[in-house]
Every structure is written in C-alpha cells, then in structure tokens.
C-alpha cells in the first residue's frame, strides 16, 4: 500500500541502529541533536531565571557556574556543530550531488556512535557533579584550580570531535568523488558549497582542539606542565590553541546555515541566486580567512601589539565575504516571485539577525573598542546573534524547508508562521538588551550583578521565555505532522533541484540508477547557463 521509501525499508530498532543509509543516520542525528538542544535549553532557562534578580538567590555560585558551562558545552559541541551538517547535510548532500549515499556509509554510522559516546561522557560529567570551567576550559583554572569533573567533560569534547572530523571527511570525499555525471562544480547547489567549506574547517581545526583538551586532561591527571605556569607552562598557549579551532568553529556553525538560506531564498523567490560564484567562493574565503583571526580573542591577554594589529586587520577582512552573501541574497529577492512561506520567514529572520551579529563583530574586531567590551555581555549578545540568530534560524528554516522531503508529510503552515514570528521577536528581546548591558560594563559569566543592570536582564529573561515557546512549538507540530500530516508531493514548493525530483520521502537508493545532470539547480526561467555571474 505504501510506496517503498527509506522510512519503510526495514522496521524495528535494529534496522535503525545498524543502518548505513545516510537518510536514516540523518534522522538519528535529528533525534539526538534535538535531545541535546532541549537539555542545553533547560540550562539556559535556569541561567535566565537566576539573572532575573541581581542577587544570587536561585542557584549557588557553584551551580550557576556549572549551568553556564554545561549550557555552552552542550550547545556548542553537541548541538550547533552537528546540527545542520549532520542532519540536513547528511540527508541532502548525497541526493544533491546525485549519489546513492555518502562515500563511506559505515564511517557515517560510526561517527554517530562516536558522537553519542562523547555525549555520554559529557552527561557523566554533568551527573557526577558537573564542570565549572566555562566551555572555553581556560588554563590554568581548568588544570590547576577547578575541582569539578573537567577530565570527563574534556574527554567528551575530545571524543565528539572525531565524529565531526569523520563527518567532514565523508562530505569532502563525497563532493569530490561521488558527483553524478554532469554535476560539475559550478552546478553544485550552494548548500553543497557551504558544506564543502565547513568540512575543510572540520578536518583542519577539530584535531587541534582534540589535542588541546587532551593536554588539559593530561596536565590535570599526570601533572605534566604544558599550560600551568606553576609547572613552567604558559596558560596563554592554551588560548592560542583553543581559539585556533574555536573561532573557525563558529564558521562550522554559520556556513551551513548560509547554505540553507541560499537554497531557501532561491526557492521562495523562484529565481536563481544572484552572483552564484561570489556566493560559492565567499564560503571558501570565510573558511580560509577564518583560520587566521583567532588572535582577536587575545587582544588584552598580553599578546604582542603587532600580532594584535594583524589579527584585527584579518578579522575585518573576514567580514567582507559575509557581507557579500547578504547583499547577494537581497539582490536575489529583487524581481523574484516572493512567497512568504515559513522557511522564507526563517530565512528573512536569519538575514536580519545574522546582519546584526556580523556587524557587531566589527565592534569586537576594532582593538581599541574591544578593550572595553571584551568579556562583557556585548560579546555574549554578539555571538548569540551569530549562533542562535544565525545558525539556529538557518537550521529551523532548513528543517521546515526540507521536512516534507524528509518525512513525506506537510506540517501546519499556520503554526509554523507563528513559531517563526515568536522566535524572531523572542530572540531580539532576549539578546538585544545584552548589547546595552555589555556596553554598560556587565561582565559575562557573572552570577550576581549590580542592581542598576537589572532592567536589561529582566527584558532578556522575558524574551527568553518567548523564545522558549517559539522553540517548543516546532517540536510539537513537526512531531505531530510526522504521524498525522498531509502527505507531501515530491516538490511541494515548486523548487528546482535534484532533491525535489525524487519522491518524498526518497527511496533507500535515492535514485533509480545514476542520474545524468544537464544543468544547475534553481533554474526557473529558461536561460543559457545558470549560475555563472
């Protein structure tokens, strides 16, 4: 009665837990990143509740410190980094390049198990008493002073890093070697380009954080002196190694979201992207330049002024490719046939919030100004605009866009629009006041704060409750649609791309045979060659 699809090709737990199908693995990731997102969100709610009042009256300082640490660790390493690549990328990259699966299906499954194992370590750290170093694990606090479960958490991060490396490796090889005949580099969907850039960061950056947290663990357990000045080490070396990965890691979060937005903007404008090659190459530019800016986290950490000067300069440079993308998206809408379906609302939300996040990044790149705002809520607001306003908006937009394809069902457009609106409003109310609080001097990671800053914190906590509703809604209507949604056609949006030419949900092998590609994606109007600007 049902048409064969990857969803009904095998039943029972085993057919899921031992699957090598990239689409099923994507759903495994979807379930697990959602679980981590809920956990990380609960930590965030406790933080916002505590900060309602200036005094530390809800949690003790120890607990508060553990809350923001766990919030950061869970959200960064277990939600943001895997979210779009491991769920949407996993599902759609093979289909978009016209392949039956990723190059290494078994490694793909293994990387999910590695991710879960890393998650278990982190949970073990949380349950056995928590970690209080902040997600940055700065030495010598993490190696010499903290008496919480740093080693367990560090191992969790170390292990889950390999999941990320293997995912990136799989994507790179797939994009290089698995493209269908006719799928040339400049016919690739921009979603694939952005994942290619992301994968480069994953394979080049992640090993450095892996070895760094391993050294932290070694220093704690074996008292080897690498970072602790009391043992002859240099604590700032840790910061260099840490940010060498962790700054590019921000691009691991935002580049895939940019890829999602490029797809959505084209589909809902019924128009190919403006300046394809500029958008494609700006992804690579971000990935490459992004490796050279880590020192802007150390302007006031005693780094040489001249090093700081170079890092500041390059940090301004890395803003340019992002600006190019924003301008090109805007130009794509120009003279399009614009439909404001829920994915497009998320995309507009992304562009607005990412623009604010990106522009406030310039404030932090300006050395003289960074002295004042460094380590204040200004920074907190800035990176939440990028990571939550940018990456999560992109993730939700992509999830709504491809949901009919992934599940074969349509969700309630009405609720989806409400949720998109709530997320946008709630987000701005939560994080915009933090810019002001930050410039007023409120340092980050403060359990108690001066009473005159309460106004901004109350606004922020109020916004967070709206945001929570905005995030809870999709959880409900998307889950509901999985079982009771209207069945979707192969191409519910009238979009153009390989993924819309296979049935919804796709069959296990994606294509019946190898597709032969004759032109680029999102070619709505008759035209010569799509994509080359």
């Amino acid at each position: 009665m049902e048409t064969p699809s990857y969803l009904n090709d095998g039943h029972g737990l085993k057919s899921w837990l031992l699957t090598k199908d990239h689409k099923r693995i994507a759903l495994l990731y979807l379930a697990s990143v959602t679980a981590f997102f809920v956990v990380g969100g609960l930590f965030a709610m406790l933080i916002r509740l505590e900060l309602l009042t200036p005094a530390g009256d809800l949690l003790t300082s120890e607990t508060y410190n553990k809350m923001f640490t766990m919030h950061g660790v869970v959200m960064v390493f277990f939600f943001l980094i895997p979210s779009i690549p491991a769920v949407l990328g996993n599902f759609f990259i093979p289909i978009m390049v016209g392949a039956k699966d990723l190059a290494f299906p078994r490694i793909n499954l293994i990387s999910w198990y590695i991710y879960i194992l890393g998650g278990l370590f982190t949970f073990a750290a949380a349950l056995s008493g928590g970690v209080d170093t902040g997600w940055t694990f700065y030495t010598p606090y993490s190696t010499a002073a903290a008496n919480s479960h740093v080693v367990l958490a560090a191992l969790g991060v170390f292990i889950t890093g390999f999941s990320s490396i293997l995912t990136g490796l799989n994507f790179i090889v797939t994009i290089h070697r698995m493209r269908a005949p006719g799928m040339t580099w400049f016919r690739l969907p921009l979603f694939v380009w952005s994942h290619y850039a992301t994968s480069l960061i994953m394979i080049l950056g992640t090993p450095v954080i892996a070895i760094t947290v391993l050294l932290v663990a070694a220093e704690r357990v074996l008292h080897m002196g690498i970072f602790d000045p009391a043992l002859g080490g240099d604590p700032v070396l840790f910061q260099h190694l840490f940010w060498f990965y962790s700054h590019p890691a921000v691009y691991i979060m935002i580049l895939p979201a940019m890829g999602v937005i490029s797809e959505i903007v084209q589909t809902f404008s019924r128009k190919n992207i403006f300046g394809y090659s500029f958008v494609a190459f700006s992804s690579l530019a971000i990935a490459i330049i992004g490796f050279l800016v880590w020192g802007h986290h150390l302007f006031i950490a005693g780094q040489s002024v001249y090093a700081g000067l170079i890092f500041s300069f390059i940090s301004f440079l890395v803003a340019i490719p992002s600006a190019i993308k924003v301008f090109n998206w805007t130009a794509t809408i120009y003279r399009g046939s614009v439909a404001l379906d829920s994915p497009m609302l998320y995309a507009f939300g992304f562009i607005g919030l990412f623009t604010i996040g990106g522009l406030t990044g310039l404030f932090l790149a300006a050395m003289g100004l960074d002295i004042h705002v460094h380590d204040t809520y200004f920074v907190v607001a800035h990176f939440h605009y990028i990571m939550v306003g940018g990456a999560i908006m992109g993730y939700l937009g992509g999830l709504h866009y491809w949901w009919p394809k992934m599940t074969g069902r349509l969700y309630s457009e009405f609720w989806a629009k409400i949720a998109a609106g709530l997320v946008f409003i709630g987000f701005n109310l939560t994080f915009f006041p933090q810019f002001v609080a930050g410039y007023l001097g409120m340092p980050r990671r403060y359990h108690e704060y001066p009473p005159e800053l309460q106004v901004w914190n109350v606004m922020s906590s109020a916004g967070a409750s709206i945001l929570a509703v905005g995030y809870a809604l999709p959880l409900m209507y998307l889950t509901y649609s999985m079982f009771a949604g209207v069945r979707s056609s192969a191409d519910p949006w009238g979009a153009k791309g390989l993924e819309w030419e296979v049935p919804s949900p796709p069959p296990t092998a994606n294509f019946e045979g190898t597709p032969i590609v004759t032109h680029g994606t999102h070619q709505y109007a008759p035209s010569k060659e799509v994509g080359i600007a």
Partner: protein
Amino acid sequence: MFTNLPFFPEQASAQAGQVDAIYFFMVAVTAFFALLIAALIVIFAIKYRRRDDEEIGVAIHGSLALELMWTIVPLGIAMVMFAWGAKVFFDLYRPPQGAMEIFIVGKQWMWKAQHADGTREINELHVPIGRPVKLIMGSEDVIHSYYIPSFRVKADVIPGRYNSMWFTATKPGKYKLFCAEYCGTRHSGMIGWVTAMDPLDFQAWLGGGTTTASPVAAGEKLFNDLACNSCHTPGPQARGPALAGIYGKSIQLQGGGSATVDDAYIRESIVNPQAKIVAGFQPIMPTFQGLVSEEQLLQLIAYVRSVGQQPAPTGTPGS
C-alpha cells in the same frame, strides 16, 4: 524606572571619550547598513510578492559591477574602522612617561593593590584625577582581568607574567571595578570600587591609610633577607650580575642572543633563573618559585628596578 536609564557608562577617564567616539561611529555605520538591508528585503518582499501560483522570478545571474561595489565599499569602511580602532588601542596601550605606578595582584577572589609609598588596599583603588596612573598587574593563581567600565580600560591578569594598563581619571567619584575573566566560584564577587579623588584629597588619603613599607623598601629588605645581595654585588668577584644601571638595557646571554632587562625578565630570573643566563656567569642561582609570593615578587622587581635605573657606579661598590 525607565526614566534616566543610561545606555552608556559614565565617562570618567581621559580615554573614555575616545572609545565612545569610535563606538558611536560604528553604531551609526552599522545601523545604517542593517536598516538598509532590512528595508530592501521588506520592500522587495512586498513589491515582488507572488501574485499567482505559477509565477516565477526574472532570471538575473549577477552583475560584476554590483559585486565589486559591495565588496569594495564595505572593505573601505572596514579599513577606516580598523585604523581607528588600532589607533585607540595604541593610545590606550602605551603609558606616558612618569605615570604613577601602582602594583595590583589578583587572587581568587580579591584584588590587592599597593601604592608606591606602601599604602595597601583590598578590592579598592584610590587614584588622583588628572594624572596618568599605570597599573602593573600579576596573579597568584588563575587568570583574572582588571576592568573599570567607566574608564573603558581592561587587561587580563595572567599568572607567570606581568600585564599593565594605564588611565587618567578625570572626574572625582566612585567607579565599579570588575573581574572580567572567569576565575572560579566567586568570580562575580571579585569586584570593588575605584575612587578617583582630587590630588590634594588623594595625598591626604595616602597619609591616613594603612602604610607599610613602600614596595621598593620592602623589596630591598627581601633582597637582603633572601641573601640575593651575597651574589648580586658590584665587583669582579661577584657570582651574579650587578644590578645598577641594567634596567631597560640589553644584555648579552650565555650561548648567544640577548635580552632586554624589563619586568618580565627580572621575574623570570627570579622564578626560573636558568632560563636566560647573562654571559660570563655560571647558572648557579636557585629558583625562588614558591618561596616568594606574587606580591613579594612585585616588591623585588620594584627594588631591582629602582637600583637598575640608577647610573652604574664607577668603581665604588654601592648599596
């Protein structure tokens, strides 16, 4: 509650205006671009809304002229911001000659300060207005960060090395002092007050405070108590280099290379004496790591510096 709600901290130092100026500039420029993008998107979304289900957009593939424009114009603006930000940083980074020096030691979770005359305070700092003040800072345990929002200054305080920062307070008053780098359980309790006073009031305050020996005097006492003076004496038979006149100078190291005698070098020579040996001497000095506290180190450095800034004696052994 919302009346008189400030958006900016008070400007209470000579630097605050400089930082706020670039801030206003950037707020204006970025607000312009953010609103421009938002307006364009809203206008396009309305003007080009889909009017029937089958409608598609116009195939436009791009425009090199436009791409160049929105690459070069933002780049130009970014470069202005970069240059301005760098200039402000350099101004805030280089203390002027003759700044009043105060030693700061951070430890979990308090700030200790010691003035040149030996006056000490905890979680407070008194400074005169109208005079450049340079803070020389070290940490006894983990990384902290000394932050006075109203002065728009901040610098990390890192164990194992010295960082400094400077400011000129302009307005008498009490200003908040924060630790900005997460340092453990009571991080948010590592706060205090900076009091800027009229120079005359400041002198009076200094006189009335709990004065101990000045850092230089305390350092000299330590220098003798720890028997540093048994080796570091002038004369040909001395086992360690004489200190007079060496501060700020470049010295030749054993095994080639040279080093400048600054606070960091003096500190390293005390806690890790074997790291850089002055040419012509044996590596016989023991380490004093763990024997002297961070505060005592600062005192020793103050003393070595005071001696080191005197001209090298000609012939007669000095104090």
